């Protein structure tokens, strides 16, 4: 479609552009210099900034070009989104990487320390431990969440009574925030579960007071929270299986198990891939339940020659407490960069694998 510019106006465009740039720059300069911009008895800094930006956009819009007009319009329309994305994601990422090479304490940067934060983090036993248990947690969760969710999905696609109720009930935990879940379960573990463990084994302390059982407790809560969500995806997958295939299998005399393993599972292979990666990435980012349930406590008597006190502290929580509790913002930032790299690799793999699966289908 040819789009004609009837009233491109070069002088107007240039005036708008130049005025806009001047106003914007003067507003920004005043802002950085902490000076107010006095005009007609009031501070016009904010107004200058607004008018400057509007001027630049108008100038671009009126710029008499046929070739690039569409491109300019596209940029103007995309700008709000790109600007927000840059301010909230790109700039913090770049700044964060920059801070990780310094000794920033959240207030000031005193020295640039180069790679010291990065080398230090791999000699810190508590951090290595956090990485290890995060991987362990991810592994357990990937298997357990998918298994539980798939079984629930099978249950909720069978013809039992009250199916709607079951679906809603299993999905509900996912609607409660992780912090709230953590505190609710903390109460359950230290007031209800202790009654059972005392009766069964004579151990009167809660699961949360011992590192191994606390780790199991976190997994239980997380599976309980997340399985309902994954279940929904599996239900959709199972409902997508064409009925004629299932009918054909039934006519051929396939048992229920045969149908499950030879028909249903292969038919929802792509759903399984998606769900696996969803659980993988979300388990890596585990933070809120970890914080509320154990706050990372738990002791490991001997790990790399140290007595660890952060037995259940996973990566995200470790980063948070390094920065905020121990007041080592730059060190936490370096750990966060590593965390970013791990997550980026996982995400790229996910995109690669799911897209190749889609081609096969």
């Amino acid at each position, binding site marked *: 479609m040819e789009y004609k510019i009837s009233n491109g106006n070069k002088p107007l465009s240039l005036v708008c552009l130049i005025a806009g740039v001047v106003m914007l720059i003067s507003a920004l300069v005043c802002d950085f210099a902490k000076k107010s911009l006095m005009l007609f008895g009031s501070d016009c800094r*904010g107004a200058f900034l607004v008018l400057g930006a509007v001027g630049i956009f108008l100038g671009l819009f009126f710029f008499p070009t046929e070739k690039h007009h569409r491109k300019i319009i596209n940029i*103007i329309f995309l700008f709000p989104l790109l600007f927000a994305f840059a301010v909230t994601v790109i700039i913090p990422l770049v700044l964060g990487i920059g801070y990780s090479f310094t000794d920033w304490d959240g207030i000031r940067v005193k020295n640039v320390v180069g790679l010291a934060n990065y080398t230090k983090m791999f000699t810190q036993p508590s951090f290595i431990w956090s990485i290890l248990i995060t991987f362990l947690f991810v592994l357990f969760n990937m298997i357990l969440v998918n298994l539980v969710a798939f079984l629930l999905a099978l249950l909720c696609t069978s013809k039992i009574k009250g199916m709607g109720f079951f679906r809603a009930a299993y999905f509900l935990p996912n609607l409660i925030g992780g912090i709230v879940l953590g505190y609710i379960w903390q109460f359950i573990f230290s007031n209800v579960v202790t009654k059972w463990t005392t009766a069964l084994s004579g151990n009167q302390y809660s699961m949360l007071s011992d590192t191994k059982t606390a780790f199991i407790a976190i997994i239980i809560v997380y599976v309980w929270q997340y399985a309902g969500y994954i279940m929904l995806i599996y239900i959709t997958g199972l409902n997508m299986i064409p009925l004629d295939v299932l009918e054909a299998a039934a006519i051929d005399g396939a048992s229920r198990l045969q149908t499950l393993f030879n028909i249903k599972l292969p038919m929802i292979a792509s759903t399984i891939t998606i769900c696996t990666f969803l659980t993988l990435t979300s388990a890596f980012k585990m933070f809120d339940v970890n914080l509320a349930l154990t706050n990372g406590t738990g002791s490991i008597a001997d790990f790399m020659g140290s007595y660890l006190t952060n037995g259940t502290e996973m990566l995200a929580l470790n980063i948070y407490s390094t920065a905020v509790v121990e007041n080592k913002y730059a060190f936490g930032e370096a750990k966060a960069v590593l965390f970013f790299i791990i997550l980026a690799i996982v995400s790229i793999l996910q995109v690669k694998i799911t897209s190749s699966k889609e081609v096969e289908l």
Partner: protein
Amino acid sequence: MKKKALTLLMAGVMAFSLTACGGASTNSGSTDNSGADSTTTEAEADADSSSSDKTVSGDAIRLLNGKPEIDAQLQELAAKYNEETGAEVVIETIGGDTNASDELKKMYQADNMPDIFVIEANQAANWDGMLADLSGEEWTDKTGFELTDDNMGTIGFPYTVEATALGYNADVLSAAGVDPASLTSPDAWKSACETLDSKKDELGITAVFGWCAEPANLGWSSGTHVFGQYLDAGLKADDTTYIDMLNDGGKIDDARMKSFAEFVGMMNQYSDPALLVDGTYDNQVAGFKDGKYAFITQGNWCVTSPEDVSFEVGFAPYAFEDGINTIIAGPPSYWVAYQDGNVDGAKAFFNWCAGDSAQDILVNKAGLVSPFDDCQYEATNPFYKSMKSYIDAGNYSGWHTMLKKDGLQNETCQVFADYAKGSIADADAFVETIKKVIESYYAE
């Protein structure tokens, strides 16, 4: 043509909505700065405040409060200050799980610093060179509790004094025939515990100690306060022997730590098992208020109103060595004035706060304990009488536990928990473990 007009309109709306957001924040930024910017003239500041009625007028000082429980009383304090002097103070309270020091860092990055804010003693170094020297101010003559720093001088205004030791239920102790004044040696404690324990049913108590070493939510109690007894118990308020050792690469005094560990072992032994390992602060305090425990390992903040308890309370020292007869008392945190803020306004406010009408509100309404010698109000806190008797006799130690390395409490509290649970078997193993943990934390 119509289409083009629509495009133009939408582009304009988008650009405007975007820049309007940016513009608004710059505006408020500029007005906020005006208070701090000494080059701004009076007229300009007025113009600023009139341009937006939400923002603070040029002369008002902003105070960042870290104690949400006294927010209402501080608002009242600000209103009173305005009424008496005409100057304005704006109280901003940080509460819940966000701590003030974290919020301050964000405020600093956003160039939105309050004129007065709250810090703990070990955070002074973070703000090196940015806090105003308050020495020579009138109020400094009336208290011995101000915060001083080698580089910056007198920087911290004490707004309250808190004390921590073993809080006791005097009714239970007298019914059992135990004199709290005699509890100044490990042996005396031991026999007192045995007596109380043997008369549990008769006295109606569940356990001798309401001591909770749960690390996830109560780590501050074991890791900072109880650990602080190792650092300070029995020492004069300005004696920094053990905190200096600790901050010199995490060294501890083995013999002292051993005695301390034995004392903690005794607390573990006579504590309520339901509370010891996975209790909560609420359970602990509720149990003490219900008279279920003879002692509680908290401070004067756990029982703030006389209506909370139906019995007399007091403090007994952690006498893990013979002759220890002090409680830890002092300001746990301070108000400081930001160097680039309205320092004169802050100084005037501090002087006023040390005076009678402010103390009336802080002591009688907010339930704080006054750090000032000439304060005529008796705090309503049930522990106050006991606190005062220790402070008047000079038998109080400092809050040097606040000077330990940031975050150490999160490491040591786990050791207390393991000891309570029994996975650290005895006092020797406790000393060995805590030494290892502290050393490796300081080595980082």
